[in-house]
């Protein structure tokens, strides 16, 4: 791919020497400018899955900033475009902070509305020319410092360099850890947070980068067309166009937006020439049809269509490797375990319903503690409150770590996960499009991971750990298979292994063996015991009584949002109160 990319770059660089057709060169300049914006959109919308329909704002900000600086202050666009990029990035972060709380449709809608808002403001803002717009100072024609020429060649190379940079940024993100984190955030943000991935930070990073690149494209566009007004550079249709180019070519890839931009721009140029007038909108009719067709038949875009023609080798299921079994007899008594997790008076109300009604619970280092109880007892709600997925209505949650106690209540899930608390979900949550190995790579420790670190590939230690865990749970034959291709039992193993990568001191398992066959139940039990030997403390919700009896050192029996009985498994088994509640007698 890199060799192919370099070849394309050289070809494009040599193109103006061979082709002198101004119409075609103009088309290519537009392809590069729109391609840059589509690649920029793809950083946020493709990799991180945040669909923005407001990127015209950044394009317009770029165009207006560098133009204002040149026309009003005489500052060279060579400097002005960077000011434009910086301003757009700053605005995007201010906008992104509240907007990222919204999901999918609402995010798309909010960006659309924001873009309209900005357009209306610019239409009425006299300083920037209001509806009349701004002309670039053509008296500076052919003065290189003003970035204005009457030939197309300089623009061609500027746009090409920018486009190359945008593709490079996309390729980089695709190759480093950050790319994996973003795909995980795109597929299931909550599950990503359970691994400690700070979703908001990375989404803001992509938003800033995306806005800055789009603004650069806007600045260069203004320098090229020499006239800007709100209905061209701030047109909401332009935002949609950036998105459509990326989606059409194949979002979340480097080649996709580039292909999409090339295809759609050149198509519209051709239709404009052949069918008589860009103005009639035939090109958009064809766009619309193509978009619907490709969405219905190949959601991965043109690139997906190409990939379909090349069947990929699928990994044959290899022999399953069983780990060494660890029996209960190897565990032995532990010396005076210290307190690890302390829950006191935890309450959670949903309206009038008391899902948790003053839960007290303690987990000590090295223990396996079980939570048992009828459906609706509040077990999963308890986990959600401990791990930050639900805000508690009252009470205290304290994690006692080497560095001192940490109060967990009111903290976001990724922060809690970074304190060393891993969890799995009752309804299995893996990332369908990520491969098995990728799941394990993103499971690495995220505490103290800087942005610079996320911009590098996974370190060898993480890779070794991932390989080891792959063997441990017997999934190494499936390492390159997407999680969606795994069976339910294998997905459970994967979710378990993924949470183990960072050696969490405490793991919360929500029904780890529910819904899997007996062989996998036995294997999971073995893994939990083995991991417990290796130093991980477990808090386990489970309905499978046999499994729980074999695993747990202590049990809490919950009903109606309270802990009813607590003690060793045998004691709970003989508690009439617990049995009556459990079986509804």
């Amino acid at each position, binding site marked *: 791919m890199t060799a192919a990319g370099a070849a394309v770059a050289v070809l494009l660089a040599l193109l103006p020497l061979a082709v002198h057709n101004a119409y075609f060169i103009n088309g290519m300049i537009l392809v590069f400018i729109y391609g840059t914006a589509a690649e920029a959109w793809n950083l946020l919308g493709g990799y991180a*899955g945040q*669909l923005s329909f407001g990127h015209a704002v950044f394009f317009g900000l770029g165009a207006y900033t560098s133009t204002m600086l040149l026309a009003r202050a005489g500052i060279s666009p060579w400097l002005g475009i960077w000011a434009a990029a910086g301003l757009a990035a700053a605005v995007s972060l201010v906008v992104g902070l*509240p*907007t990222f*709380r*919204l*999901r*999918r*449709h*609402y995010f*798309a*809608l*909010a960006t*659309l*509305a*924001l873009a*309209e*808002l900005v357009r*209306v*403001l610019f239409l*009425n803002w006299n300083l920037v020319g209001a509806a009349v717009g701004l002309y670039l100072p053509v008296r500076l024609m052919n003065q290189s410092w003003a970035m204005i020429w009457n030939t197309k060649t300089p623009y061609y190379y500027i746009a090409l360099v920018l486009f190359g940079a945008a593709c490079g940024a996309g390729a980089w993100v695709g190759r480093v850890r950050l790319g994996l984190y973003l795909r995980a955030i795109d597929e299931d943000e*909550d599950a990503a947070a359970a691994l400690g991935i700070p979703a908001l930070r990375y989404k803001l990073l992509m938003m800033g980068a995306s806005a800055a690149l789009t603004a650069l494209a806007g600045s260069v566009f203004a320098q090229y067309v020499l006239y800007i007004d709100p209905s061209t550079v701030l047109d*909401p249709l332009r935002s*949609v166009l950036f*998105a*459509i180019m990326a*989606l059409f070519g194949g*979002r979340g890839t480097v080649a996709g937006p580039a292909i999409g931009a090339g295809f759609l721009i050149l198509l519209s140029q051709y239709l404009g020439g052949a069918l008589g007038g860009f103005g*009639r*909108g*035939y*090109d*958009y*009719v064809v*766009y*619309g*049809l*193509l*978009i*619907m067709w490709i*969405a*219905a*038949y190949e*959601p991965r875009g043109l690139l997906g269509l190409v990939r379909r023609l090349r069947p990929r080798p699928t990994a044959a299921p290899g022999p399953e490797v069983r780990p060494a079994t660890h029996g209960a007899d190897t565990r032995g008594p532990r010396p005076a375990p210290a307190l690890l997790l302390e829950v006191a008076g935890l309450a959670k109300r949903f309206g009038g319903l008391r899902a948790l009604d003053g839960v007290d619970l303690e987990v000590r280092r090295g223990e396996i503690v079980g939570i048992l109880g009828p459906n609706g007892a509040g077990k999963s709600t308890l986990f959600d409150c401990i791990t930050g997925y639900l805000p508690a209505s009252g009470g205290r949650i304290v994690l006692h770590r080497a560095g001192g106690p940490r109060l967990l209540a009111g903290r976001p899930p990724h922060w809690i996960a970074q304190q060393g608390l891993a969890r799995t979900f009752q309804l299995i949550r893996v990332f369908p499009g990520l491969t098995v190995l990728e799941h394990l790579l993103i499971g690495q420790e995220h505490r103290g991971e800087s942005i610079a670190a996320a911009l590098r590939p996974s370190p060898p230690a993480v890779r070794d750990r991932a390989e080891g865990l792959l063997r441990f749970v017997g999934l190494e034959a499936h390492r390159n298979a997407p999680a969606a291709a795994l069976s339910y039992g294998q997905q459970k193993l994967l979710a378990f292994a993924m949470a183990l990568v960072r050696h969490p001191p405490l793991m919360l398992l929500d029904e780890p063996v529910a819904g899997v066959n007996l062989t996998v139940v036995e294997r999971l039990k073995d893994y939990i015991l083995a991991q417990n030997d290796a130093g991980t403390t477990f808090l386990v919700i489970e309905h499978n009584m046999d499994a729980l009896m074999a695993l747990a050192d202590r049990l809490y029996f919950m009903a109606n949002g309270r802990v009813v009985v607590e003690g060793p498994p045998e004691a709970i088994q003989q508690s009439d109160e617990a049995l009556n509640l459990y079986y509804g007698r």
Partner: protein
Amino acid sequence: MNLLLTAVVQGLIMGLVYALVSLGLGLIWGVVDVVNFAHAEYMMWAMYATYFAVAGFHLDLLAALPIVVALGFLAGVCTYAVLIRRIMSAPAVTQIFTTFGLLFFLRYSAFAAFGPDFRGITWPPAGGSVLILGVPIGAAQVDAALAALITFGLLHAFLQWTKTGKALQATAQNPAAALALGIEVERMYMLAWGLSIATAAVGGAFLLTFYQVSPTVGDAFLLLMFASVVLGGFGSVLGPLLGGVVIGLVESVAGNLVSPTFKLALVFGALLLVLFLRPGGLLGQERRG
């Protein structure tokens, strides 16, 4: 005081019209769980259909109305059967992408067919103005508001008191359970699309009596529709009604008392405020994450 009363009455009347054209958007969102970014384009096509029926075939608006509404229903059913059915289980990204494709296709095929000109009709009953609470309001607007109330009443009655209507509601709340009960969910989706576009057609037809149509008329309405639906919630028929009226009031009061230039900006601002304050939608009816 008089200015405020005028603004409120005008806002109420226009709000009912916004509610009518938004109703179908909320219906599909609620029942089919697809956000149709092309909804305003269907309204635009209904306006053209009305224009040609009235100006071309010299039909009375009320005679043209059943034809336009039937065509709208058919267009909705076909859209579901041909396109939407294939993307029902696709990710939200693909769904949004698809309806944007639909938007492009519908808008620019109208552009290619009819050109950029503005067209309108005159309908004698919509001439002149009437006094409501002492405020003169165009008869055309009042007729459209009445049509909105009748449409809302009929749809509400259909959903509440017929078996099919109940089945439609069941499908909206839990398609899997509805399927298990023997409700033909596919047909319900098709019905929802038909009803959605049919109501947009009623709105479009009456809108044409005081608002000229051009291929880009949807631009002015798309975000207004979304604002109405998000504001009111899309679980019921009454949600968009409430939302539409609130948006009409915001627009009218802001336009009359603050500044006409920024009235749309204020509407979008209101939409953003609702989105930020209630990220899950006002009524929190979201099924998928």
